[in-house]
């Protein structure tokens, strides 16, 4: 007769539903992929499209990212140019930055053609050029820069090597109040040229607009965007990202491009939802290259103004029994400066329905040394998850002190341990607490068995891993309390033999736990 495992394997495979089929599955998956990509357009693409449109009206439409008001104190200070850079006509408002050309030093310039004086920033005819051999003269000039918005105008932004080929690309920006639209130019030596990099999208991923490559460099309260390089075994990918920040999380859209010569090919796109603190930020360098001009002092850090808590741990479960997941978070309140101090005040936040709106915000009930949510699981079968809080990483050998609570009315209340006649194992510290411990000094634990009954136990394990002595407390199913019953050590062998000396607490009564 086949083993139970083989029987299960056979019967489950035969019982597994089959796909409905119909149509070309590859085509369906491809359509889904393109649809995912197009859905992600909003953030980064919106910026790029609007910046390319280059009108004040367009900027207003995207006011969250770009505004055209003056930027106090950010007017660039032009560097002193060499005499006309060998161009043969007068120039002004020159900005320069070092570049690398096939591993050798060179220079990039952004300058304005002087005609009867020097036009104001954002006016006149402005260009990007490159000195390919570092001799101080421009060897190649790109097409005239357009959409250089007042009052800052177009600036040298940075000289990253976005494809790792040893030659810098030239990044040129146009500035708004909150950030920049950045163009990329390729430098070639044979023939000497500075040419705009153009986006192509052969797979139809569609996350950026094809044509001249421009991306956003912005960081405001609700939105940020930038770019970075990812060095992979098969080459360097240039990734642009857009972040929509909706406290406490951020939606991040990434678009990956491979840049070769004057072509940036879209090779992928993805989406992530992360805590705001973990979202990428533009910062003040691009692929490791410093930023120049008014972007030089672009803030390095993520805007944390929308995130009140740091060092947070969250658990999800049905705390109030309405069959909708609720969110329980314990975190540290940020200081006024935005820093996350280990001595900061801890806060317990309960969000019923996980709709992002806290329903209870209070100090954790007992948080003298440490507190973090440990598990959120219904151990007594009343349909409401009990909240297990880790209330103390104490000195060795104790691993954790766990307090048990339930959400009643509008607050959490301790779930008392009551009754019982058996000798108390030493793992009940207080009326609603027990220990978790794994050490040579003994084992303390708690678990659920047969679905609904909650047990705390203590014991020791001999060198062979056999449980040599165990005492138990078995708690019944009373809704408001965990009432332990007198149970001696002669427990049914069917489950006493299953009690494992746990080596780690990664699961508790069927729920994943947070160790903190």
């Amino acid at each position, binding site marked *: *007769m086949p083993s139970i495992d083989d029987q*299960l*394997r056979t019967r489950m495979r035969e*019982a597994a*539903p089959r796909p*409905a089929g119909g149509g070309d599955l590859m085509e369906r998956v491809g359509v889904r992929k393109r649809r*995912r990509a197009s859905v992600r357009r909003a953030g980064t693409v919106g910026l790029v499209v609007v910046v390319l449109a280059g009108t004040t009206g367009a900027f207003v439409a995207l006011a969250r990212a770009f505004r055209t008001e003056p930027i106090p104190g950010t007017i660039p200070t032009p560097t002193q140019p060499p005499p006309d850079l060998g161009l043969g006509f007068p120039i002004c408002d020159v900005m320069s930055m070092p570049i690398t050309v096939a591993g050798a030093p060179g220079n990039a310039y952004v300058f304005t053609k002087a005609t009867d004086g020097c036009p104001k920033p954002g006016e006149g005819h402005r260009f990007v050029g490159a000195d390919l051999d570092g001799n101080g003269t421009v060897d190649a000039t790109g097409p005239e820069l357009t959409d250089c918005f007042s009052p800052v105008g177009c600036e040298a932004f940075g000289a990253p090597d976005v494809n790792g080929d040893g030659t810098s690309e030239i990044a040129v920006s146009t500035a708004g109040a909150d950030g920049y639209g950045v163009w990329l130019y390729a430098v070639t030596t044979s023939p000497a040229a500075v040419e705009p990099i153009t986006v192509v999208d052969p797979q139809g991923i569609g996350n950026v607009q094809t044509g001249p490559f421009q991306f956003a460099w912005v960081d405001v309260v609700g939105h940020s965007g930038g770019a970075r390089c990812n060095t992979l075994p098969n080459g360097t990918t240039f990734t642009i990202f857009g972040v929509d920040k909706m406290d406490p999380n951020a939606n991040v859209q990434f678009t990956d491009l491979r840049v070769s010569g004057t072509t940036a090919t879209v090779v992928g*796109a993805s989406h992530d939802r992360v805590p705001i603190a973990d979202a990428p930020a533009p910062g003040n360098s691009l692929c490791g290259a410093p930023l120049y001009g008014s972007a030089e002092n672009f803030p390095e850090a993520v805007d944390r103004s929308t995130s009140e808590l740091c060092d947070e741990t969250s658990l999800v479960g049905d705390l109030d029994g309405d069959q909708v*997941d609720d969110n329980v978070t314990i975190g540290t309140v940020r200081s006024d400066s935005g820093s996350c101090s280990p001595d900061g005040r801890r806060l317990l936040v309960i969000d019923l329905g996980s709709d992002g709106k806290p329903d209870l915000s209070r100090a954790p009930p007992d948080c003298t040394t440490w507190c973090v949510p440990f598990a959120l699981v219904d151990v007594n079968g009343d349909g409401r998850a009990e909240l297990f809080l880790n209330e103390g990483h104490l000195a060795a050998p104790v691993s954790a002190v766990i307090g048990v609570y339930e959400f009643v009315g509008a607050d959490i209340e301790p779930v008392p341990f009551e009754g019982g006649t058996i000798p108390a194992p030493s793992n009940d510290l207080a009326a609603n607490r027990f220990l978790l411990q794994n050490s040579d000094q003994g084992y303390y634990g708690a678990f659920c068995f047969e679905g609904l009954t909650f047990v705390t136990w203590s014991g020791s394990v001999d060198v062979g891993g056999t449980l040599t002595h165990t005492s138990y407390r078995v708690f019944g199913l009373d809704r408001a309390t965990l009432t332990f019953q007198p149970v001696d050590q002669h427990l049914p062998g069917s489950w006493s033999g*299953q009690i494992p000396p746990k080596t780690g607490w990664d699961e508790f009564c069927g729920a994943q736990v947070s160790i903190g």
Partner: protein
Amino acid sequence: MDEVELREFLRERYPRLVGAVALVTGDAAAAEDAVQEAIVRAWERSERGEQIAALDGWVATVALNLSRSRLRRLRVERLARPRLVAPPPVQPSGDRVDITRALAGLPRRQREVAVLRYVLDLSTEEIARQMRTSEGTVKSQLFKARGHLADALSLVEDTDEENSHAEHR
């Protein structure tokens, strides 16, 4: 993963993956949706140069996570709009009823572990890696699931103890 590899994966592995996820969720259409979504995500990752070592397990786990999120959304929708009633599921027949009923009696986590093990043939080590838990936990969950399923399906225990415990070592 290039297009040829993807086509082969869809041809060879897609049906079983859908079946596995459907056994957990009880909804074949939702399972197809979740598995396709997971495959697209794997495809995107491979285009970014990321390597997914065990594609079967990765896709199955992502699909199970997606289906869990979907169930949560459905629950919220139903609570918000009491008159919104899901269409009755297609009634399976024969042995599928027994298996479905037996699986439905398991906690979600045990159901997932059992399906990953018995339908997709993932090792306990691979299941633990994909579910981001310890192998001991997986074995414990599998042990419980196996016992429940054997009872519910009236499976007769093999007298050869070696065989009966082989899966859990």
